[in-house]
């Protein structure tokens, strides 16, 4: 077999054709080449044999998400009802702009009649409240957008 520099176009093309490749680029001292083959449809449509209703499923995705510039999310560790206040008429644990220290309580999540107080794991500032008060939050659902301090 010839060295790459000395191959003729037909030979290169033939190798590409026989291969399973969809794209190939080649450059050397004497020439450069670029091949591309259309794949059948170029895409796989994953079948969805059922109507996709509005789902909370997507909410689980950003579990480990960390946005740019030190923005993080505090995610729900359990399934439960999200409360910003310790009691209906009490002031909220935090507001947008609040600065909290590690171990401070930021919300209550009620599950099986137990009020679970969620503590931050690091010092941070509350940038946004993502979950809706008194609504169900699922495992991994982002509750707050925060900025690490």
């Amino acid at each position, binding site marked *: 077999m010839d060295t790459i520099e000395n191959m003729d176009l037909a030979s290169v093309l033939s190798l590409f054709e026989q291969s399973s490749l969809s794209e190939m680029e080649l450059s050397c001292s004497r020439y450069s080449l670029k091949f591309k083959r259309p794949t059948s449809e170029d895409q*796989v449509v*994953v079948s969805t*044999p059922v109507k996709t209703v509005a789902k909370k*499923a997507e909410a689980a995705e950003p579990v480990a998400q960390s946005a740019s510039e030190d923005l993080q999310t505090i995610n729900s560790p359990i*399934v439960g009802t999200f409360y910003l206040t310790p009691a209906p008429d009490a002031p909220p644990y935090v507001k947008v702009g609040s600065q909290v220290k590690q171990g401070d309580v930021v919300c209550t999540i009620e599950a099986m009649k137990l009020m679970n107080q969620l503590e931050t794991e690091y010092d941070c500032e509350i940038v946004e409240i993502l979950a809706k008060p008194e609504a169900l939050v699922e*495992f*991994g659902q982002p509750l707050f957008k925060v900025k690490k301090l």
Partner: protein
Amino acid sequence: MIKKLLIANRGEIAVRVIRACRDLGIKTVAVFSTADANTLAVRMADEAVCIGESATDKSYLNVPNIITAACALRCDAIHPGVGFLSENADFAKKVEDAGLIFIGPKSETIALLGNKVAARTAALAAKIPITPGSTEVLKDLADAKETAKKIGYPVILKAAAGGGGRGMRIVRKEEQLEQSLQIAKKEALSFFGDASVHMERYLEQPRHVEIQLLADGQGTVVHLGERDCSVQKNHQKLLEESPSPILDEEMRKAMCADSVRLFKELGYRSAGTVEFLVEDGAYYFMEVNARLQVEHPVSELVSSIDLVQAQIAIAEGKKLNLKQKDVPLKGYALECRINALSAGKITNLSFPFGPFVRVDSYLETGSVLSPYYDSMIAKIIVWASDRDKGLAVMMRALEEVVIEGIKTNLEEQKLLITSKQFRSGRFGTDLYQKVCEQEK
């Protein structure tokens, strides 16, 4: 009336329950682990809630998250599927305590039948033959020695709180008894938190035959005939058929009558199964599975009864408007479990269609099989007028199956079904070893 139901399970059985709910006009809530976010059950259900990480104890066994989700989404009921929490009396109790309907037996019934010694005692009280052995937990080594002498070696030590093949020890000689008893107790304690152990005579090559029952807890109990589940690999069932090729009409009648009597005496509610061992023309009570079983479609095809719909109707408090004569059993049904032998992405998938073939699965082209869960990925179930025809239909169906991207047991199942031994109907629980392992 149940209007919304949460399915505390995953995979094909979650899809199965969703289909039954759609047939009944009931809305569904799926729960899922982070690994299962993109699965069929999650997309088919009307709503879906993430309940934890991939590991089952963090998600599908996470009772507070499941019950909280059901309450918050205003479900009326929870169906536990098979496996996971389906035979957990404590879960059933918590579901009831939360004001929800548990689709299954009463929690007391599950608790009673979960203790194997108590179940044997209940069977004895109902005059059902049990394997010779102790009817109480073994007190000490002396008790064990005396019991073994009475029933004859080989014997098997079983965890009283056990099940699923764990915490069991076979003892062939008296010399081994002391050591085996110690190990069995240790295993029982570590698996089930209870060191109690009892002893039974060990049967070498029994058939596993189980009777499917349906009871409304209001006095009506009917049976849907038997399933023969003798083809197993490491105590996991591979093929299930009905009727069993080794039962004669007399033994079938006796086993069914015994099972119905037992369920009546238990005041059982919902679908359930009585498992028997059959050897040398005799049958012995083994245990009750107080839940739906993986192989339930076999009985659905011979009886034309949808067991999941029936479970739901019974849980709603409806009476079973059935007498035994209204449940004629017709023809032959066979189920073949397709198991994954490796994890990975399904690059190409095609299931069989056509007459008298049913497929229960949750796979789609592009599905990614995670290594966290049960390896069973599909059930192929066929119906025919008799066993020979049924085996032909199953081979036709299996030959249409294409699963690419992962390894499966498809070829092994074809080997089993075409083997002389399986075709003859006469084989023991070692069929898999004889047919599949000797091939290699």
